């Protein structure tokens, strides 16, 4: 049996070791970067992920302690309340029968126009008399950042039309009536 | 970005990633095979990579 190498792979011992050392250092640097990345991600995650948003009803409940702090609020947009005027969009969101009036001051994402879409808004409470579908409120939520929180429901655009009706059972427990969308 | 642009970009990037990775894996196999002196069989193979056999 022929045992001789078929080509030159003979590397002197020191050269091999040097190559190994260099490779080891590269891998260690990569590992260090990865560990740093993990630490950064975890820190970011702990800061933001644990309380990503408050639902509208919780935000109303915690209004006193929240004060003028920035936080995220989540609820479904009531279609008949959406009005847009000189860069400011006003509308109302509802979650668990708690209605919050919103004054949003940047361009909403495209999907915002879908009726009853759940949105996450970033901003804070401000004092101000507002009228809403329930009656009136002493505070409104001033927001400058909107994220559309789309759901995991998918339906063919060929078969279904958007009705403007709230999702099944969503307002069943509520003591107020929501006016139908005009458009 | 519009919906259509997003879809085209997403599918495009995905195909590029998968194709690049596939080619990297196959070529790495060929290179090491040749280094080891056991790649000749593949070069002589008229199957998949007929255009690679330039030295015949």
């Amino acid at each position: 049996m022929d045992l001789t190498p078929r080509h030159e792979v003979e590397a002197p011992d020191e050269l091999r070791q040097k190559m190994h050392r260099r490779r080891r250092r590269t891998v260690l640097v990569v590992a260090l970067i990865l560990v740093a990345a993990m630490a950064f991600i975890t820190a970011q995650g702990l800061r933001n992920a644990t309380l990503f948003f408050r639902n509208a009803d919780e935000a109303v409940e915690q209004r006193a302690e929240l004060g003028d702090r920035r936080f995220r609020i989540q609820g479904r947009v009531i279609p008949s309340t959406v009005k847009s005027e000189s860069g400011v969009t006003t509308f109302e969101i509802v979650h668990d029968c708690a209605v919050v009036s919103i004054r949003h001051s940047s361009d909403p994402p495209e999907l915002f126009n879908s009726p009853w879409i759940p949105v996450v808004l970033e901003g804070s409470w401000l004092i101000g008399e507002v009228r809403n579908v329930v009656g009136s409120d002493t505070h409104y939520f001033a927001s400058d950042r909107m994220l559309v929180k789309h759901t995991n429901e998918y339906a063919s655009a060929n078969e279904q039309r958007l009705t403007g009706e709230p999702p099944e059972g969503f307002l069943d427990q509520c003591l107020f009536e929501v006016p139908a969308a005009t458009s | 970005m519009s919906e259509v642009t997003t879809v085209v970009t997403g599918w495009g990037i995905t195909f590029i990633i998968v194709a690049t990775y596939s080619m990297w894996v196959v070529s790495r196999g060929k290179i090491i095979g040749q280094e080891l002196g056991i790649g000749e069989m593949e070069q002589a193979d008229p199957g998949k990579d007929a255009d690679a056999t330039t030295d015949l």
Partner: protein
Amino acid sequence: MTSTTRSNAKMTATPATRVLGVLAIAATALMAVLGLFISPADVIQGEAVRMLYLHVPSIWIAYGAFVLTSVSSILFLRARKRREDQGRHYDRLAGSAAEVGVVFTGITLITGMLWGKVTWGTYWQWDARLTTTILLFVTYLGYLALRRLPADPMVRSQRAAVMALISFINVPIVHYSVDWWRTLHQKASLSVGRRPEITGEMYWTLLYSTLAVTIVATWLMIHRYRVIRLEELRDEEALAALISSRLKNDDGSN
């Protein structure tokens, strides 16, 4: 070493994987036709819903690959002292599956960011699902780096196997993050015991895409496995050459 493994190692393509490769290309082409043209637009999301057929199958395949990595790592740790090949077969399987898993996690992240921009209105948010997914990506990158750290092959494989098992803890966390925490990310598209909230044509396109991506991933893993085998052969040969050159030197000096 048996003669069959030798002949397999000669090249990374065999008639079987060539058939699989052609099948993978055909399946992907059909997936593109179904996903991009045949399946309908969504009533809310419009055309953007077509990201679903890349994003969701990619992460399922990544989960599957990481399960394979973990199972193979356990089998390696059990077999390393018993089997004739010291369990190296399982180590190669773990390594190739992890790499394919990382590629598809990367695809999940990229397609997800693009999709997020058109639906949510942002590429990135540090919500629980997105945070745990990028952590998964980075952790398995670390696993792959560990596999490349020069060391005795068996020591290296043992370290990697332990790292693989630690890394896997995050997989169920990623999956259930949307139920455990409030996230911007939607709930799971399909889950056991829940009526799918997705219309028939989209549902079947999603399932078919998963099948197509599975074929592609299988082809990739088989080839990557064979390349790892070749890398091992190269290292063995280099070591053998080193030893023989040393022996020659010793002969000369004495």
